[in-house]
């Protein structure tokens, strides 16, 4: 997290699958318009929503995040549809 304080120009958003273990992250958007993406929005992944890392199962297993006061487990395949921004941009 060495770059946390440096001021840098806006960077490309990263995917929720690469959510850093510490620090702030906010949802930028959910990719796609199919039922899965729509459901992710309905679960609360709307722009500006804060997302916290809770834990990750070993061997690229599911990821648990905290958002809107509840915890949700997602597989990497679904998590990568959610784009997020962190103060350090694309360097988790």
């Amino acid at each position, binding site marked *: 997290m060495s770059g946390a304080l440096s001021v840098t120009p806006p960077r490309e958003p990263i995917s929720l699958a690469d959510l850093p273990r510490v620090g702030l992250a906010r949802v930028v958007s959910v990719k796609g318009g199919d039922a899965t993406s729509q459901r*992710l*929005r*309905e679960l609360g992944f709307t*722009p500006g*929503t804060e997302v916290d890392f809770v*834990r990750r199962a070993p061997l690229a*297993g*599911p990821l648990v995040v905290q958002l809107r006061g509840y915890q949700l487990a997602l597989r990497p395949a*679904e998590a990568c549809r959610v784009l997020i921004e962190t103060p350090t941009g694309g360097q988790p």
Partner: protein
Amino acid sequence: MSEGPSPNIALVGSPNSGKTTLFNALTGLRAKTGNYPGVTVDRREGVFREGPHQVRLVDLPGTYSLHAISEDEAVSVQVLRGELEGVEAPDAIVVVADATTLERSLPMIAEVLLLGRPTLLALTMIDELKARGGDIDLFALKRELGVPVIGVVGNRGLGVADLREQLLDPASWTPSQNLPGGDTEARFAWADALLQRITRHPVSESRLTRRLDGLLLHPIFGGLIFLAFVTFFFQAIFTWAGPAMDAFAGALDQAADWTLVTLPESWATDLLADGVIRGVGSVVVFVPQIALLFALILFFEACGYMARAAFVVDRIMGWVGLEGRCFVALLSSYACALPGVMATRTIPSPKDRLATILVAPLATCSARLPVYALLISAFVPAAPVFGPITMQGLTLMGLYLLGAVSAILFAAIFKRGMLRGASLPFYMELPPYRFPSFSSLGLQVWRRVQIFLAKAGRVILVGSIALWFLLNFPTVEPPEGATEAGAAQFQIENSLAADMGRALEPVFGPLGYDWRINIGLIGSFAARELMVSTMAQVYAYEGGEEEVEGFADLLTRADPATGEPLMSAAAGFSLMVFFVYAMLCVSTIAVVRRETASWRWPLFQFGYMTAVAWVGAFVTYQIAS
């Protein structure tokens, strides 16, 4: 019946909102379960009376939004909109929401209010909200939404009386006109602004949950605890249910004997005692085990551990192509495939659910155990291998493993073949740990036991009556001077069942089975638990059914007519393998038919399992002999 109006009210809410607990608190035993027409989605309806009035309640499947992506969500939405054929539109709606997660559920509440029907908001977990430092202005929420808002604690019955009273008069529940139209984003923006206005103090996270998850979801300890959980689960359903099952079995045996002694000697008495009472008995005996199984599943589900167990095994299940939640159904199948298949209802993806149903009967159900016990003690020496471990124990473990490995293998094959692709996204809420309501759990266990008795009971009763007729007709006169046992033997050798057993010899001959084993197979098709008792009749074994050793000893003795053993070791091993794979259970076929709403899948399942069983047993027989 009541004179007053009888409003029809639908309960809707997200999974984990406490909706079912609230439904059970309101309706108690006056609820019934069934299916919605054409789909396999639970339909729970109940009534309650308040003075002269009667209210009908329907508990809709949990849904996160009104944009349904699964079958059960679609049913909820169609019922709410009054679009499901054969189901009348509700007069009013009760939205159930967890007070601690309003930030997520308010947008869906808005969606329901926008339907324009009389609506009431029931906020559950109010006690937990307070305990976690949260404080919401319910009056302000009521003002903003325009509908009554009632805080309840379903598992302790708090607020339920108040809610009952409100439910009598839904006409006055008029949603506000100032609700957000537009898309999901607009609804969440509205919800965030509304929460700002009504929240006096935000709810903090559950510290208990964070601490417990640190242990239960730990990469190493979490896995170990999960293994301990599975061991505990097995231990419980096999050993704790044992005494109750033995007591049931003993009582039914006595009832059958009493019938034989007390009623006049006739074929009707025999039918009643051996066909009806022992037939029903073979089903009722499983009730303690099934009730305990469901009690454990529902308890761990309600307190929050099942979601964690699914999280822990999700990666492993993912390799097979399934997801964590399929595990619970497979685990249950080790007691009996019926509850296992019924438990697949918690799997949201239809393809994952179907794959799980198709392999569930490969898990070694407890009805196979007596058959394995008989065959192993007849054909496997009790020689010690290592310490207390014997050849017999290892063989039994091998048969369990063969079933488990085959289930995984076939699930992988189906998911890579005809059931390829994820039709639903995988996401799973991890709710905070909560203490479940025992009365609600009791009601849910009772409903499942009812389904089991209705399904299995009918099939096995009919099967055992039919089997009795096949074994006892046509009636023949025993030869002069025959002993009682000899006469019974002579009767069976000349019965319809023996004819059928002989007719099956070309099919099962290559597996090493003679007509006597074939009769046992016919019996076990009605229910595997009838295999041992049928074989005991066919081989004219005089000892009690519990005396496995004696019967096993008899099987290896030489047939006086041929000098060959009654059953060869090769045939015994072949029979073990056949039982690992064969779908010898009409009740399972009936339940799969019910759960998949078609004959296609149960027939496919029967076909593939029988084919594998035949080939497996054939290879075993050829190698062993």
